[in-house]
């Protein structure tokens, strides 16, 4: 009984913390302006749409991985799946959540574009170091 209550509380709080944590990661990246090059590659000009996410993630996987952003990219991937789940379930019953999930999905896509920008500059730095040596 006690373990069941603890489990229920933990799952509710886990969801709460996880969503807030993902939104804090997104908030930090939303202040970064994308370079013209990344804008061209991703097709994101000012506001990103949730539909861009999959494409940007595919581009992200083409770049060499940076160990320090692996965790955050995965976390946002899980958050995006959670939003898709909400969009296909709760948003059908409560239409007002549809606009919110769309906005959040767009933020996720923008976060992925910022991560792409970081990975591109990381690859360039590595290449420059190799050329120097």
């Amino acid at each position, binding site marked *: 009984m006690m*373990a069941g209550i603890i489990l229920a509380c933990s799952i509710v709080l886990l969801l709460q913390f996880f969503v807030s944590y993902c939104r804090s990661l997104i908030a930090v990246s939303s202040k970064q302006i994308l370079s013209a090059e990344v804008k061209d590659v991703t097709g994101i000009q000012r506001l990103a749409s949730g539909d861009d996410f999959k494409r940007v993630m595919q581009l992200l996987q083409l770049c060499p991985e940076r160990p320090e952003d692996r965790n955050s990219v995965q976390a946002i991937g899980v958050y995006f799946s959670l939003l898709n789940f909400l969009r296909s379930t709760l948003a059908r019953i409560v239409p007002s959540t549809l606009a919110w999930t769309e906005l959040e999905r767009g933020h996720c896509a923008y976060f992925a574009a910022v991560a792409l920008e970081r990975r591109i500059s990381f690859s360039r730095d590595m290449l420059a170091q190799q050329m120097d040596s």
Partner: protein
Amino acid sequence: MLGPYEYVIWLICTLLEASVLVCAIRKGAFRRYFLLNFYMATSVVASIARYKFLHDFGFNSREYIYFYYYSDALLTVLLYFALSSLYSHVFSELKADRYLRMGTIFLLSGTALFSYAVVQQSSAKLVTHFVVELSQNLYFVGLVLTYVLWAAILKMRETRTQLIQLVLSLGVYFSLFAANYAVQNLHRTSGSFLEALTPLFGCFLPLSWAYTFWHVPEEARTVPSRLAVVPR
């Protein structure tokens, strides 16, 4: 017996814990978040010592099992104090350090007494079971305290992004472990899927803290109400 998967996760986790210290030192956050870094340093030392015990005595030896659970309890208590240091950061302007310290000790003693009362009725190996019970209970107390701290951050409109991310990642970590312990208590089966996931959960905290120290500058600010699940 530990397999290659467990060894690899163990190594990665230890390296990540060390990387938190490196990131904190490089970004000048070591002293600011001293207790958090002290916890990570102790985790690295405990990992190395556990490996030594495993190598010298074997996985099923009493020495290794005792050392594992006692060091785990010590680390949980340290993490609990690290959490209380985050309270000090949030409430720094209220000059409530003394009350926070008293509250921390009072709650820790209460949790220890509760754990003792639970194991006293049902255990022959009192001290060992007490240590395990204390660890599990402290994870849940830590989770509740992190939630209270998050509520205080929202209420007091704390804007330091670094501090917010440290608190939120600690909340995710505590809730993962509290849920994991609860599932294990509900279904006492070994070799389950969750048991294989447990070492991965341990990697979350050092990864997220290293990311925060490395990527989020001290002066970065966020409006916390924008992060809440329920808009305020």
